[in-house]
C-alpha cells in the first residue's frame, strides 16, 4: 500500500507518481474532455465557453504524461512540496474561472434587464399611441 501513496520525500525535489496514479489521471482527463465534446454536440455548452475546459483537460493530461512538469512548476513557485504547488495552481485557476463567470453573469443580467425594459417601453408606447387616437372603442366605431 505504501506504493499507492506518492508522497514526496523530505528534501527530495523530484516528483514520485506511480504509473497507477498517472494512468488514472490520464483516463480522467480524457473522459473529461470527451464529456465536454458531448456537451457541445448536444448544444448544452457553447464552443466559446468550452475552450477553458479543454485547456484544463490538456493540462491534466500533460501532468499525467510528464510528472516532471509539476516539479518545474513547484520550483518556479519556490514551493518544496509539489502537492502544495499543484493545489495552489488549481485553486488559483478555479478562482479565476469563478470570477470570469461572475463577469459574464453581470453582463448578461444587464442585457436581460435592458431587453425587459425595451419590451415594456414598446408596449407602453403602443398603449399611449392608441389612447391618443381616441382609444380602442373609438376605433371600432370608425
Amino acid at each position: 500500500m505504501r506504493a499507492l501513496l506518492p508522497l514526496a520525500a523530505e528534501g527530495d525535489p523530484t516528483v514520485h507518481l506511480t504509473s497507477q496514479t498517472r494512468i488514472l489521471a490520464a483516463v480522467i482527463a480524457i473522459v473529461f474532455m470527451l464529456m465536454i465534446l458531448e456537451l457541445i454536440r448536444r448544444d448544452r455548452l457553447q464552443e466559446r465557453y468550452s475552450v477553458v475546459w479543454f485547456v484544463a483537460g490538456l493540462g491534466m493530461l500533460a501532468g499525467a504524461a510528464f510528472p516532471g512538469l509539476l516539479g518545474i512548476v513547484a520550483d518556479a513557485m519556490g514551493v518544496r512540496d509539489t502537492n502544495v504547488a499543484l493545489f495552489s495552481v488549481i485553486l488559483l485557476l478555479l478562482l479565476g474561472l469563478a470570477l470570469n463567470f461572475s463577469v459574464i453573469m453581470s453582463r448578461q443580467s444587464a442585457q436581460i434587464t435592458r431587453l425587459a425594459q425595451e419590451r415594456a417601453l414598446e408596449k407602453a408606447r403602443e398603449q399611449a399611441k392608441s389612447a391618443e387616437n381616441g382609444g380602442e372603442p373609438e376605433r371600432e366605431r370608425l
Partner: protein
Amino acid sequence: MRTLVFIPAWNEADSVASVIAGVREYMPEADVLVVDDGSTDETAARAGEAGAVVASLPFNEGLGAALQTGYLYALREGYDFCAHLDADGQHPPDEVARLLEEVRADRADLVIGSRYREPGEAKSDDYRPTLSRRIGTSVFRFALTLATRQRFTDTTSGMRAANRRVMALFSENYSPDFAEIESLQLAVRQGLRVEEVPVRMLERVGGSSFLTPLRSAFFIFKGMIVLLVGQFRPRKAGTEQ
C-alpha cells in the same frame, strides 16, 4: 413643456389607483406612467383602469431597473420634465408638484423630496422611521455627504423630479440594485445641480417595508461598497443624447 410622472410599482394593486388619481388631481397637465415591475397581482390592470399608461416588465427586475425604465420612457418620448413617486401612497402628489416646480424654474437638475424636516415642525401624521432604518439613514447620510461634499438628509427618497439632463444620465448609468444612493453620487459627480426639498410623507397605505434588521445590515454593507466604487468611476462625458 411636457411632463411625465411615473410610478414604479411592484404588487401594489391596493394603492396604485389612488396614487394615480392623486397625481391626476394635483398635476392635471402631466402624463402618468406606471412601471409595473413584474407584479403578480392586479397592479397593471388597476393602473390601466385608472387611466395611466403601463410599462410592464416581464419579470421583477428591482427598483433601480424600474426607475430607469421610467427615465428611458421620458427621454425617448421627448418629455421636458419628469417626476416619480412610490406606489404605496407614502408620497403625497401635491408635494411632488412642488418638486416639479423647482426643476421647471431651472433652480436644479434633480430635486429630491426629503422626508426629514427641521425638528419642531413635525406633525402627527408625519413619517416615523423604524430603528434599523434610522441607523441606515444616518450611515448613508454621512457616507454620501463625504462622497459628494454636499449635504443630503434623505438619501433613499423615492420622490424626485428631474429634467432632460438627468433623464439622459440615468437612462444609461443607473445601478439596477442600488438606485437611490448611487444615483445621487453619480449626478453630483457629473456636475448636475441636485437639490433637496423637505416634504411631508405619510404612512404607507398598503404593503410593508422590505427591511428586516439583517437585510438592513446587508443593505448598508452593499451600499458602502457601491459608494466606494462610485468614487473611482470615471466621469463619463457626453451623456446628453
